[in-house]
């Protein structure tokens, strides 16, 4: 694998990392397998597309808006649909989030059609040289933004009062309740934060790649793999999982052919599940 390929893999992995963290937090801490996650990512892309078409707003700026909108959507979905059924077991939350996915998918198809869309930025073609490899400027910027966002999420979880509350609830729900914490509020914020991260990723994705509702399913497949690789609810684990998936997919495409990409991810996921069900970096008490 040449230097160029490694750089491409890492740049792709950075986006995967950001994408996986939201899903991992929702699953690991709120206990919800969010099958509507792919729909939320793509919704973020379309929000950026709209702002680009209307006001020529750069996706790197409009990502703040899509993050905020999806935070609200996530909170609303959690409060109205998911919260009453958390005790019903995974069958209910899986089916409910799948229903949300169907509804959002239908809305996207109706408003923006099934065609692939792209956001054409003026600096999309520019790149700079690193050794004997070329780095596309826009992918590099997206990688940097993703890294900063991952670090901010980490800071939020470790330094703020709410973040520490979420950590406490994840460790021991009854214990947190006993010392007077509003457990439901922590779950709500955590879930909404997850969807916000999905929207942010969607905007970044839209600045680089083209997108369409066909990506809904594959995205959910990828975030599953990333979350399992890293260990549920583990931010750095998911970040590492994203990078790993980016590298594994690129390497797999080189050595086996691009048609095996999806299978490689799935095989890695199942092996990790069997070998270390709490993830490569996870600790046993999560999940």
């Amino acid at each position, binding site marked *: 694998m040449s230097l160029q390929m490694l750089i491409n893999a890492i740049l792709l992995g950075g986006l995967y990392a950001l994408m996986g963290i939201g899903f991992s937090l929702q699953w690991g801490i709120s206990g919800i397998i969010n099958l509507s996650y792919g729909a939320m990512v793509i919704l973020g892309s379309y929000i950026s597309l709209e702002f680009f078409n209307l006001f020529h707003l750069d996706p790197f700026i409009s990502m703040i808006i899509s993050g905020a909108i999806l935070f609200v959507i996530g909170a609303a979905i959690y409060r109205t649909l998911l919260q009453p059924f958390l005790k019903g077991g*995974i069958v*209910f939350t899986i089916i409910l989030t799948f229903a949300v996915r169907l*509804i959002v998918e239908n809305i996207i198809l109706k408003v923006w059609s099934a065609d692939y869309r792209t956001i054409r930025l003026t600096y999309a073609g520019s790149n700079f040289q690193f050794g004997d490899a070329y780095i596309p400027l826009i992918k590099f910027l997206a990688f940097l933004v993703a890294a900063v966002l991952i670090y901010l999420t980490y800071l939020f979880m470790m330094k703020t009062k709410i973040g520490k509350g979420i950590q406490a609830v994840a460790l021991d729900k009854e214990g947190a309740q006993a010392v007077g914490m509003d457990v439901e509020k922590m779950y709500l914020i955590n879930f909404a934060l997850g969807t916000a991260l999905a929207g942010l990723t969607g905007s970044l994705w839209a600045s680089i790649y083209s997108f369409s509702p066909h990506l809904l399913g594959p995205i959910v497949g990828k975030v599953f793999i990333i979350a399992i690789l890293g260990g549920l609810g583990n931010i750095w684990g998911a970040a590492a999982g994203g990078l790993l998936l980016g590298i594994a997919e690129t390497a797999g495409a080189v050595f086996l052919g691009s048609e095996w990409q999806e*299978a490689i991810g*799935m095989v890695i996921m199942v092996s990790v*599940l*069997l070998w270390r069900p709490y993830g490569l970096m996870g600790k046993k008490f999560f999940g």
Partner: protein
Amino acid sequence: MVLNNKKVNIFLLIIGIILFIFLPRFISGYWVRVITTIFMYAVISQGINLMSGYMGYLPFGNAMFFGIGAYVTAIGMSKGLPFLVVVPLAAITAILFSIIFGLPVLRLRGHYFAIATIGISGALLSVVQNATEITGGAMGTTLPIIDKSPEITYNYFYLAMLALMVITTLTIYLVIKSKFGFGIRSIKANEEAANSMGINTTYHKVTAWAISALFTSIAGALYAYWMSFIGPEEVFDVMIAVNTIVIMLIGGAGSILGPIIGAFVIELFSEVVWSSFLEYHLAVLGITIIIIVFFVPKGITGTIADFVKKRELRLRKKVSV
């Protein structure tokens, strides 16, 4: 009650089966096909019901057995084997897969098991798509067409699928009522406790999955011969599992008639939705799922059972007063 409940039930079931056998004479070919699909979904849903409703393990990737059944049939028949030889082969292949994957994967609990089955299903899909020489690849593969008029063919598959549904339901009923079935249900209640009571949980779980795989793969085999063309995306579709999980929830998880009732309700409903809201059928399906989960979370059979129980309690109170 004066009448013996069990005898009445058996009598009603036999009447129902006879009615269904003669039904194709009174309805159009289109509805014969719709009802055949309903039987098929009921069979797949019974397999998921055994795993999830009775044992508490959600097999999200169960569509893989459907795909295995369909593809073994397609490959076997393209080699010139007759259908009745290929079906047992398909079933044995599916059972082997369920044992090979089941032994490691069924150690995982809850979420993890559901996700691992999705992963295996996705990997199998990729293998089928890429092994072009054997499976025909992503383009799909064709099966020999039956040399009879379409009407006779469709009636044949209608009866075959009906028979499969009846056999599946009876088998799962007998399994659940047996000692083995108690083992399965004790796993759902508390796996550690079941284990410490001397129940071989691994054996129970793998066998249950093998039974589930057996019937799902036969449904896949019938489907492949019926359609005479199959594509990998179509028979390994996760949507098959999602649909059948919804069917199980609506009918009532952990009840023997639940999947059949659910299959009729959901498929007839989506038939109506397809024809009248073509552009919004995804959203309507999504909203329906939400409404059902909110208002009949126990499913149709569960809600009826609750209603009957409440009424009996009321009557008993009146008598005692």
